[in-house]
């Protein structure tokens, strides 16, 4: 049950389990059958389940999502694999005006999962968008951002057994991360954050690609006597507001860590919510450690200059602690 597998393999296990259990689960995407997807996320499933259920498509993002939505309305549970989340821009109407709204408008559930690799890595400006806050902003969508193999598998199962469309975002840089995973029925519920490290002096909220960095920052803070609690959100919508506020009411301080350029991103929502609900408990402002407001450059030193860093996170904790502790 708890052999170590990679983040990509955990996805494959979830899909394999659910496909074996439920005939209506299938996958649409480009280069899936042979290649197993760009991150090997369905490698081998082609042979096991055949071309009908590991269904290769042309580069037609709108049609892939439309196929998923229509099939979901007619008794299937499709997974549409968009490869990189940037390519969702070609299917934005199908995601936002169709998938997200059909249950609201027509009362018909749309049990659809849209998987894509996300986060900031190499490849330049057009391959490193971070639109997760947009999807969180769309009523009717759910947004999962797993940070571990365990959560990939458990959240994916929840998505596949749910009734509503889920945007399932897997961070590019985590593909090879190894860790234990749960068994056939170990689901990770949506809207349920997890405390990755307990602490008393400050709450650090993070998810997906920033969890490791944030844990490092907490480690570094511990060395200088600051005990930081690290909360991994696991889903951005639904957002586990209770877990966050419970922690902040205790620690009195919070820093939100997120990889997206920060202006008008999900980090803003979390910061806004914390101060709304915990104002009287706060000893300092809720600060954000995010990417700067820039398109993503190509060259590694330029990328590094934009991303939130461990030092940056530590610095934010200092700022919110020092300014008002006197």
């Amino acid at each position, binding site marked *: 049950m708890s052999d170590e597998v990679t983040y990509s393999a955990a996805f494959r296990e979830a899909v394999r389990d659910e496909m074996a259990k439920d005939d209506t689960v299938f996958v649409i995407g480009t280069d899936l059958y042979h290649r197993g997807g760009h991150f090997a996320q369905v490698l081998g499933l082609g042979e096991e389940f055949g071309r009908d259920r590991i269904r290769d498509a042309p580069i037609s993002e*709108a*049609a892939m999502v*439309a196929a*998923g939505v229509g099939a979901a*309305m*007619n008794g299937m549970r499709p997974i549409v694999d968009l490869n990189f989340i940037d390519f969702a821009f070609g299917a934005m109407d199908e995601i936002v005006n169709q998938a997200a709204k059909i249950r609201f*408008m*027509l009362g018909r559930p749309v049990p659809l999962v849209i998987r894509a690799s996300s986060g900031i890595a190499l490849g330049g400006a057009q391959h490193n968008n971070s639109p997760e806050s947009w999807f969180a902003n769309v009523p009717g969508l759910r947004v999962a951002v797993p940070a571990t193999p365990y959560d990939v598998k458990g959240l994916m199962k929840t998505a596949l057994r749910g009734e509503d469309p889920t945007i399932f975002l897997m961070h590019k840089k985590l593909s090879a991360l190894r860790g234990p995973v749960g068994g056939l029925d170990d689901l990770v519920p949506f809207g349920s954050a997890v405390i990755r490290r307990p602490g008393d002096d400050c709450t650090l909220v993070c998810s997906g690609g920033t969890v490791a960095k944030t844990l490092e920052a907490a480690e570094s803070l511990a060395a200088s006597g600051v005990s930081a609690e690290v909360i991994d959100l696991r889903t951005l919508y639904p957002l586990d*507001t*209770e877990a966050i506020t419970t922690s902040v009411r205790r620690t009195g301080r919070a820093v939100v860590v997120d990889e997206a350029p920060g202006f008008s991103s999900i980090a803003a929502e979390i910061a806004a919510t914390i101060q709304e609900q915990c104002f009287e408990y706060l000893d300092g402002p809720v600060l954000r450690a995010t990417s700067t407001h820039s398109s993503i450059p190509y060259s590694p030193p330029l990328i590094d200059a934009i991303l939130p860093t461990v030092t940056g996170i530590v610095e934010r904790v200092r700022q919110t602690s020092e300014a008002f502790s006197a």
Partner: protein
Amino acid sequence: MHDQETPEALVEWLAAMLLIREFEEQAERASLRGKVPGGVHPAIGQEAVAVGAMRALGPDDIVTGGHRPHHHALARGVDPARLMAELFGRETGLGHGIAGSMHLSDFSRGYYGSNGIVGASLGLAMGAALGASMRGTGQVAVGFVGDGAANTGRTWEFVNMAVIWNLPLIAICENNLYAVETFIDNVMGGKSMVRRAEGFGIPAFEVDGQDIHEVNRAVATARERALAGDGPTFLEMRTYRYHGHETGDKGVYRTADEVDRWRTERDPIARLASSLQASGDLSEQGLTELQEQAVARVADALAFADESPWPSASTAPHPTDREGSAR
């Protein structure tokens, strides 16, 4: 299930078209009286496309449409009273007042919904056809779009997908020559929709959308192909909307003469009525009765809608908001 075009069937088709026309006339009038929030897109003149197509389908087949959808809904058997109530935004409407004219649906009749986004309906029909094909349900899915959708890229992605996946899809383009005030020939390279479709490998045919027999036979044939596993078909239905694009619209983009000629020379209702009268299958009085029935049903629908309560705010939140821990 190809309808045999018996006299009884044809009289029923005529009745269905009369109902649509009366419904649309009254819906537009109600709209001008401020009864319909946001207005309507009436399909007056396009009745034969809807009725001819629906009468070629089986009860489990699937239908989607666009922003001009009342004729599809009514032809598919949707209750005119609940339809009118939805236009009025009332609790008793098809969509409880949440949905509106562009988001009608009746899943009990395989009516998967109208759509406010040009072209989108065809994508959903394509996906539903995929579901049908994978589950082996024997359903055929019909997606209606307008001529405006011929220039939207997504339309051709959907067609291509249906071809390569060999789906039981019938794409019906109601070419009424205009998208709002834009004449199709001015914005469509190549000028032949059928040739454009054929380029994607889909069998494509031009159909006189004002001739209900031709419409019905074309759809029946396409359905047989789909059920035989021969994949999708594209049908361009040449038709015309007599009124403006939406409630009260009066543009200068077409001549009164053009409208007149379509109305007087090719009207689908007049054509069917007079052929039924000529063949002796419908008397003058029979026709009057059918007209009166349509008027009565629509009057009832209006009364029902008008007397229906407004929806209460508690029905407004998105269903998914009721679960989970989100605010």
